């Protein structure tokens, strides 16, 4: 624990005693601990710099993983005994489908943080998640449609998974639409965060009701914690692609949150400082 008045105490008491509260800073991590780091990161100027430093590395790692995963999936992996080469679309389709759910969960968690603690950064992150998630959902739907034509003989069926994914797409569009319908962006972010939370309660309900209603999609073949019914030579490129999409998402959200913070805080001192520093 830190004592009062020492670096890191940003409470009212430190302020009352006339000391200017000092952030622990990223370099003082050895003295500090994880909550302090998160608190430090929650401040927009710190986040702006941190994200700017980390983002290129994440993007580079995502690119490397994508190249390895695509090479493994499109060249090294053998053709499927039933579907031939057509199955290779899973190296795009399945990671995108995983991401569409993962990003929704990330958006809902950030939205919860934004609603409960009113962290400005969490609002920005939740709202910047939505377009990325919508894009991954759209990719999933389109690649699934392309895959469905040769395999099932139709572009679209009202199968359980397809319908759930379509509903997920509408959930994303609703969040984006609600956020943009507000003039006050912070109020819009909070309203859309609540909508995202309502949606995450709704999503399993939609999924099971649609399963009850109709099902055609093939079952899951990848099981992380048990026996997968997919050959290892096909599995590893899939997992590498999943890693690549996750890394891309983190890089993308950092970049988007940076620009989001800049426009939200455009009148603040640190942004002015930044602009004068770069224009000089």
């Amino acid at each position, binding site marked *: 624990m830190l004592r009062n008045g020492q670096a890191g105490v940003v409470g009212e008491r430190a302020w009352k005693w006339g000391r200017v509260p000092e952030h622990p800073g990223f370099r003082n991590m050895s003295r500090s601990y994880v909550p302090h780091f998160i608190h430090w990161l929650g401040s927009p100027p710190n986040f702006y710099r941190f994200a700017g430093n980390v983002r290129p590395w994440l993007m580079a790692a995502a690119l490397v993983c994508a190249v390895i995963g695509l090479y493994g999936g499109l060249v090294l992996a053998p053709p499927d005994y039933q579907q031939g080469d057509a199955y290779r679309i899973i190296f795009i389709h399945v990671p995108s489908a995983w991401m569409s759910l993962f990003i929704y969960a990330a958006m809902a968690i950030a939205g919860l943080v934004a609603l409960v603690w009113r962290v400005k950064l969490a609002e920005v992150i939740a709202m910047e998640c939505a377009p990325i998630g919508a894009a991954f959902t759209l990719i999933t739907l389109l690649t699934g449609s392309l895959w469905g034509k040769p395999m099932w003989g139709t572009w679209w069926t009202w199968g359980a998974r397809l319908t759930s994914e379509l509903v997920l797409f*509408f959930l994303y569009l*609703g969040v984006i639409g*609600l956020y943009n319908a507000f003039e006050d962006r912070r109020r*819009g972010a909070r*309203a859309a965060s*609540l909508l995202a939370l309502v949606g995450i309660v709704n999503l399993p309900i*939609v999924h099971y009701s649609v399963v009850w209603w109709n099902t055609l999609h093939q079952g899951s073949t990848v099981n992380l914690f048990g026996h997968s019914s997919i050959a290892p030579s096909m599995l590893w490129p899939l997992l590498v692609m999943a890693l690549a999409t996750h890394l891309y998402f983190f890089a993308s959200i950092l970049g988007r949150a940076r620009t989001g913070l800049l426009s939200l805080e455009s009148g603040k001192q640190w942004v002015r400082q930044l602009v004068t520093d770069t224009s000089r």
Partner: protein
Amino acid sequence: MASLTQTVDRGTGTMDVTAVARSSRRPGTWRACRALLRRDFVLAWRRRGELFLPLLYAVIVTALFPFALGPEPELLGRIAGGVLLVIVVLAMLPALEAMFRADLEDGTLEQWLLAPQPLALLALTRVIAHWITTVLPLIVVMPLLGALLDLPMKVLPILIVTLLLATPLIALLGAVLSALAAGARRSGILLALMLLPLVVPVVIFAAGAIAAAQSGMPYLAPLTWLAAALVLAIVLAPLACAAALRIAVES
């Protein structure tokens, strides 16, 4: 107490305002809800022309189906249940959008927030009043609309029971979204977009019950699912609605 007096006064102008002001205790929860219900009914009655708009919409859309699909009774009878269900959902949409908007604009919602009664309960009261004034008439004319589409007589009671369970559920879900969208600039198509994912399970189970009744199969299971969802929504939706109203009012 002052807030309640003001609310009642603006709404009706005819209510016994002094009776509320005279009592020394603060008005109880039940009394506040009753006053709110009465105010909503009086407001709806003063603008009773608007109450017929959803009905008119439902009749027009129902009348268009035979022209589009041909007048064969077998075909119309087969699809009538599902069509009427969708028509009711669509007819509910415009009224849902206006559920909280006027109250937000004239400051009534701020009084709700200040009132000693729980906001969630006030929101639930509003949903009940809204359902009675705008949705119940739609269900009342169901026999007429069913006759237009040659709905089999044995399906009609099941359709009405299904609607009695499904429409309050949709109204509760819609109230949350309406409260969310109340503070936004424009929300016409936005509410439909937000409502679609929430309404999908309701429509699936409601249509399941109707289809089962039409083909002579047991229809109780989907109906009980709907009832369970309704009970859950009565508890949870007002809480979410209250949170959304707080976001809408703060600025």
